[in-house]
């Protein structure tokens, strides 16, 4: 069967078909030794090129891998910049959208004298169990007020599972260290 260049469909051969096998050059005598020598030198040149290139290592604890702007890391809860009120109104749409069922919201009525959120109600309890979260970003999509977004933090390891349950206060806080953003074209 002549080779057509395109990939043949699976099981297109019969057992008595003559299959054209592409082989490498025969080792040969002196010509082979000469070729091996040349290829050896080519290999040496290739690996020396890596020395010239320099290292590409990111020395992790000292420098962090930059993330893309749409990277889905640890969640953030947001407040209004002018009034300082929380954007979350405790509607629990994020909890409903969560496929991993890791968000727990308990809503409460706002006291008109001492408002917590911009809406009628606010989230009295807002917990995300990050040991269950799959970082899909559905909560962010479900939120009608852009109160919850996926942040850029990815250093989330901890020693206890209970420490991975993030409360509202923790989610509202700015991360202590900003994760570097990837520059354009990087």
């Amino acid at each position, binding site marked *: 069967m002549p080779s057509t260049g395109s990939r043949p469909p699976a099981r297109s051969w019969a057992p008595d078909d003559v299959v054209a096998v592409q082989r490498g050059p025969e080792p040969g005598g002196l010509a082979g*030794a000469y070729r091996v020598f040349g290829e*050896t030198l080519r*290999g*040496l040149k*290739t*690996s*020396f090129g*890596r*020395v010239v*290139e*320099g*290292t*590409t*290592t990111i*020395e992790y604890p000292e420098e962090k891998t930059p993330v893309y702007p749409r990277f889905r890391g640890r969640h953030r809860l947001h407040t209004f910049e002018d009034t300082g009120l929380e954007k979350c109104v405790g509607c629990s749409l994020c909890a409903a959208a969560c496929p991993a069922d890791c968000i727990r919201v308990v809503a409460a009525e706002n006291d008109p004298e001492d408002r917590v959120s911009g809406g009628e109600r606010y989230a009295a309890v807002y917990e995300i169990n990050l040991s269950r979260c799959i970082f899909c970003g559905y909560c962010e999509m479900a939120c009608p007020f852009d109160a919850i977004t996926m942040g850029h933090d990815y250093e989330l390891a901890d020693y206890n599972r209970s420490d991975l349950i993030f409360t509202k206060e923790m989610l509202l806080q700015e991360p202590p260290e900003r994760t570097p953003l990837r520059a354009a074209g990087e």
Partner: protein
Amino acid sequence: MTLATVGYFEPWYVQLLKTLIIFGIGFSLVPLALLYERKLLGRFQNRPGPNRVGPFGSMQPAADILKLISKEQFQPRGAIGWLFKLAPLISAVAALATFALIPFGRTQDVFGTDVGLYVADSNIGLLLFFALSSLGSYGVLLGGWSSGSKYSFLGAMRGAAQLISYEISQGLALLGIVMTAGSLSLSEIVEHQNGMWFIVPQIVGGLIFFVATLAEINRTPFDLLEADSELVAGFMTEYGGGRFALYFVGEYVHLVVAGAMFSTLFLGGWNLPFGIDPPGWVDPIVVLAKTGLIVSLIIWIRASLPKVRYDQLMSFGWKVLLPLATLNALVTAIILVTLAD
């Protein structure tokens, strides 16, 4: 008539002292070579290599060796106890003993005493070198065989096969040098290279010797004894802790010795080109610098080339290296005889 003489002219305490100093250098080159190899290999792979332990990773070998010697001395049930314990020692001792033969410089006047910068300058130095390097393979063979493990045994078998396929061509490759210099003494061979290094007239011999040396010190592309991809770790599969460290020491001393031997035999030892004639204390530095150059080349080759197959090494040794080495010796002999008339 004596079979072999070893030139001693210093008082005994000077001999003892210089032996200690040279072996001190030999031993301290092991962690250096270890670190240097890992650093350089890293550079060949776009990474910086070990840099966490100490400044620039300088304490990495110390940490490695400390970890190894603090580990359990494990021995498989089927092992032959005393041979299993002896084998790594043979490997390390044979490699270190080869260090005694390398001349580091001309005879120097140190505080009023003439001191030869070598441990032993035998008039059969080259033969001793071959004897010791063959002895080193006993460490490999016995270690693999006495481990009582399939992988170790296969590694040792390959070691035996490898030994016979490179050693003959390695010896024959040096015949040209021996004929030209008219001596087996290493320091006389170096003296003879004052003016022209043997790498120029003996380029074929040098290449054959270099390739055979790679096979001798079990380096890529001839690291069939270890063969990580198919034999776990070859002959040292069952070794751990201090005994493994001893094999490691042997391997790296071998690496340094191979570099020093090549620079002694082919790169003119302590001689510098273009008639540069520095004072005597520079000689050891020149030898060590040339050694470092060859060691870098060997590491470069390790970073570049894949391992050859077992039968490929055999056919390469017997069908390419051996005829070439024989031809080289013959041509050198003919030229020498023609020029002598």
